[in-house]
């Protein structure tokens, strides 16, 4: 039994490594470019879902319900994706009603660490200031 046990562990690790290696994707602009749906609940294409469009020219758009709510520039920074964006607190009144009386535009910066990168989907741990959240992205086109 012990001998079998010590044979199974490396074998399992090798198979897991091979499988993950076969499906893993590299963090490069070519991979990231395109339209992504955030935390997709089913087939991509939900008009109301959060979307992130990363363009080849370095600009991006974030939106909900088909409406753009943040626009700016994105780039790969070492192992992370950096986003510099222009947005308005007024867009997020539905999430935090306290933001209601505020208007105008503000510059914000988000950094995202990609994890579990697959061919057409990956997850990120993103932070803006002291706020941090994990979510998944599924390629739409």
């Amino acid at each position, binding site marked *: 039994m012990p001998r079998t046990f010590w044979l199974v562990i490396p074998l399992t690790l090798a198979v897991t490594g091979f499988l993950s290696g076969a499906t893993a994707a590299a963090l490069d602009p070519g991979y990231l470019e395109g339209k992504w749906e955030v935390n997709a609940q089913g087939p991509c294409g939900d008009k109301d879902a959060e979307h992130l469009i990363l363009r080849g020219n370095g600009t991006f758009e974030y939106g909900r319900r088909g409406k753009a709510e943040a626009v700016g520039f994105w780039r790969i920074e070492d192992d992370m994706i950096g986003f510099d964006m222009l947005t308005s607190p007024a867009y*997020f009144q539905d999430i935090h009603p306290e933001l209601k009386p505020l208007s105008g535009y503000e510059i914000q910066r988000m950094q995202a660490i990609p994890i579990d990168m697959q061919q057409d989907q990956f997850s990120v741990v993103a932070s*803006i200031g002291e706020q941090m959240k994990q979510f998944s992205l599924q390629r739409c086109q």
Partner: protein
Amino acid sequence: MKIVAEHRVIRSKLLSAAALAVATSMTAYTPMATAGGHGGAWAIGGLLAGHLLTDRSYQRREQTQALQSMAYGGQSGGGYGRGAARAAPAATSMTPEQKLQQLDKLAAGGYITPQEYKERRQAILNSL
């Protein structure tokens, strides 16, 4: 010089490792399925809204602190951390005219009530 550079590299690697550790632990304890795309749990939207809100709260606290320092002759009682350190010098270096202008801005921005505006304005005028 070389030692300093090496220390920087090591520190940078340690930070990356820490970030990865945080990311990995979050992956383990917060499954994707719990963060629904919409219907109350927006991912990026929630992140942005949360940050904008806390950022605004901080600004409001800081302005309130500045206002208190202004109205009470720079006698700041502390208590707001970052705001206290920055507000006090600003209050001592401002002229009454500047204080009134800032007060007008605070009122226009909805940071203080009309009653508070009247009281603070009177306090500035009384200090002349």
